[in-house]
């Protein structure tokens, strides 16, 4: 795989994870537990959507270098089927209750923030500037999701039980974040990307510290979905992604090229 082919895959993964998680957060609009949280969920989703657009736009430009013609951000988002999506499995997990949504966000933010910090030093200037832009936004996401894990964990009996259950259920989807395949290793070696295996130890330490503060137990279990190199990043998804895309892509599929 040449460098641009690897870069296309890599940037697609970053963009797809943002877009899919943004869509999930958008599903909360009008359903948040209180108005402030409804707005906050939408705003976090909006940040991720903006970041996803920048990554997908860049992916299209890299694709143009490779294939002569690159797809636009809209074509990439709305006209690819599930098997062509490269998002992390964690991002496509259903919202569940508020604890499930915040646990998913917490696991992801604790990974996303150090990843973007590292990518803002990328030798690819475009990757570096998108990451440097995104890292400021994600630092607020990380603060907020950590805060909620502590509030719900160290809260009532009910909120604590729900947060623990959410953390336990999502645990097996966290391992995929710290896998690296050929494309990622090649890009990390050339200073463009990050080998996320190097981020796992610090992630585990910060997650453990927050859960301890929240009086919650760190989930156990070594087996991870997608941990064998066949997960969302390779296009192997859970059944949930198809349902998400059906809704997200409906308009462009039913009325191709529609604009308003």
């Amino acid at each position, binding site marked *: 795989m040449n460098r641009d082919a690897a870069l296309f895959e890599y940037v697609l993964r970053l963009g797809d994870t943002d877009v899919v998680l943004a869509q999930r957060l958008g599903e909360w609009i009008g359903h948040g537990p209180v108005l402030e949280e409804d707005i906050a969920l939408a705003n976090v989703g909006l*940040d991720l959507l903006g970041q996803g*657009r920048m990554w997908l736009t860049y992916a299209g430009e890299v694709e143009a270098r490779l294939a002569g013609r690159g797809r636009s951000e809209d074509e990439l988002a709305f006209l690819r089927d599930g098997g062509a999506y490269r998002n992390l499995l964690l991002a496509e997990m259903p919202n569940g209750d508020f604890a499930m949504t915040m646990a998913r966000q917490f696991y992801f933010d604790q990974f996303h923030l150090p990843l973007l910090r590292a990518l803002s030093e990328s030798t690819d200037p475009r990757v570096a500037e998108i990451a440097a832009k995104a890292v400021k936004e994600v630092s607020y996401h990380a603060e907020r999701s950590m805060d909620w894990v502590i509030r719900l964990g160290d809260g009532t009996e009910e909120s604590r039980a729900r947060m623990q259950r959410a953390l336990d259920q999502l645990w097996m989807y966290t391992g995929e974040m710290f896998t690296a395949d050929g494309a990622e290793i090649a890009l990390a070696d050339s200073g463009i990307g990050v080998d996320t295996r190097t981020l796992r130890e610090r992630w585990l330490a910060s997650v453990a510290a927050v859960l301890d503060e929240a009086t919650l137990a760190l989930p156990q279990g070594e087996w991870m979905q997608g941990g064998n190199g066949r997960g969302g990043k390779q296009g192997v998804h859970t059944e949930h992604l198809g349902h998400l895309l059906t809704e997200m892509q409906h308009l462009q599929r039913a009325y191709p090229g529609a604009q308003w």
Partner: protein
Amino acid sequence: MVSTEVSTGVSTGVSTEVSTEVSTGMSAAVTNGAPSPAASPFNRPSLDVVWAALATVPDPEVPVISIVELGIVRSVEWRGAKLVVAVTPTYSGCPATEMINTLIRETLALIGVTDVELKNQLSPAWSTDWIAPEARERLKGFGIAPPHLLGSRIDVAGISPLRRAHVVVPCPRCASRNTELLSQFGSTACKAQYRCLDCREPFDYFKPH
């Protein structure tokens, strides 16, 4: 008829400003020199005039400050007859971006500049530290607590470093320092929601970014 119009024009502030701008524009453009066939020095306003025009464009979400004071207009330059304006987004997903671009085009058209290229500049990433000092004061009058400068977030000694500790955000209405955070996100992504515990009013806080 003619003499009346001229004298009226001179006596009102607005017309005087316009005539000043036009003359500044022409002389500056002449000194800039190198007119291309499409851009004669007589129809190309100076960059000072361009900046002054852009300074009248309000931020759609926070209309008491202009897009120039907000710090999102990074540069303006003439390339022949074309004006290139570099704009940086506040937040990646800011829904006001397209409206801001439209407002910039409309405003520039009013000073006769229609050949405009808007360049989306990501780097360096926008910071609230770029908001003009006088605009910060105006934010307060609008009911928004201005952002602290970056690096001024102080961890107050508390139960745990993980429990959120913030700098004090004084109430923009009554100046009380007895306020609390309601949500990290307010009416827009760039603002957090606070409540004053003395005057009981909710207010927005422009987050340091």
